[in-house]
């Protein structure tokens, strides 16, 4: 835990970070920018896991181990998504979601 900072403040911070990510996901049309908003959301969740573990039950490590798995999964997801985006760019020469219509109809 952080001296003098309550769990509520950390959770408010992660909530704001999470919803900034959702706002970016809704308003961006570039696929890479959407993926970046997703990273913001994943980060907020990882902070939440560690903070709640540290504040409420400091002697079990469940949340802290889970945050490591979250980072590993986020790395895997990003690598795969960027490979798909690169391939899509070579197919269609754009990564704008409004112009990618390969699977439409």
């Amino acid at each position, binding site marked *: 835990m952080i001296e*003098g*900072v309550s769990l509520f403040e950390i959770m408010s911070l992660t909530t704001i970070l999470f919803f*900034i990510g959702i*706002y970016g996901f*809704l308003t961006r049309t570039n696929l*890479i920018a959407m993926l970046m908003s997703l990273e913001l959301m994943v980060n907020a969740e990882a902070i939440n896991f560690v903070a709640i573990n540290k504040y409420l039950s400091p002697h079990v490590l469940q949340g802290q181990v889970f945050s490591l798995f979250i980072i590993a999964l986020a790395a*895997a997801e990003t690598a795969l998504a960027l*490979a798909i985006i690169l*391939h899509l760019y070579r*197919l269609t020469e754009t990564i704008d979601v409004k112009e990618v219509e390969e699977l439409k109809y």
Partner: protein
Amino acid sequence: MEKIMFYILSAVIVVFAALSVTSRKLYRATMYLLYVLIAVSGLYFMMEYDFMGAVQLSVYAGGIMVLFIYAVMMTDKIGQPMRSISAKRKILPFIVTMGTAALAIYAIYSYQGISKVNEATVTKVSQIGEKLLTYEAGGYVLPFEVISILLLAVMIAAIVIAKAKKLVNQEKN
């Protein structure tokens, strides 16, 4: 002192996250995301979880950001602002997300059931290592192995997908 540091880190996280989702230039948005990730690792260091802070710095700020920068350089015309939806169509998402965030924060602050434990604990790397590799109850050896297989599968899949041939040219031929 810690309180001031926490508020500085929070301000950095929120400001650069907001810049990262609103900047019109993709490369700059990537750089703002890098600042957010570094500030988040600072939060982990402040919570005395050094290993997670190091992992955040090396995997996120070091690895994933390099992937992002390469992808931006290969797909984007750097310096040109990317296409953006009109300001009028951004109002509704803004209202909805900020309203939901306010609701969530209100719900967090009105919850009374949290039992306070005022105890600062330092998480050692050895504790995490034992937790990850123990077979006893509460051990995480199975997810650990599954993650390693998942990373191998993702590595192969990323190579296969990124090296696939152009479909457009095949259709033309």
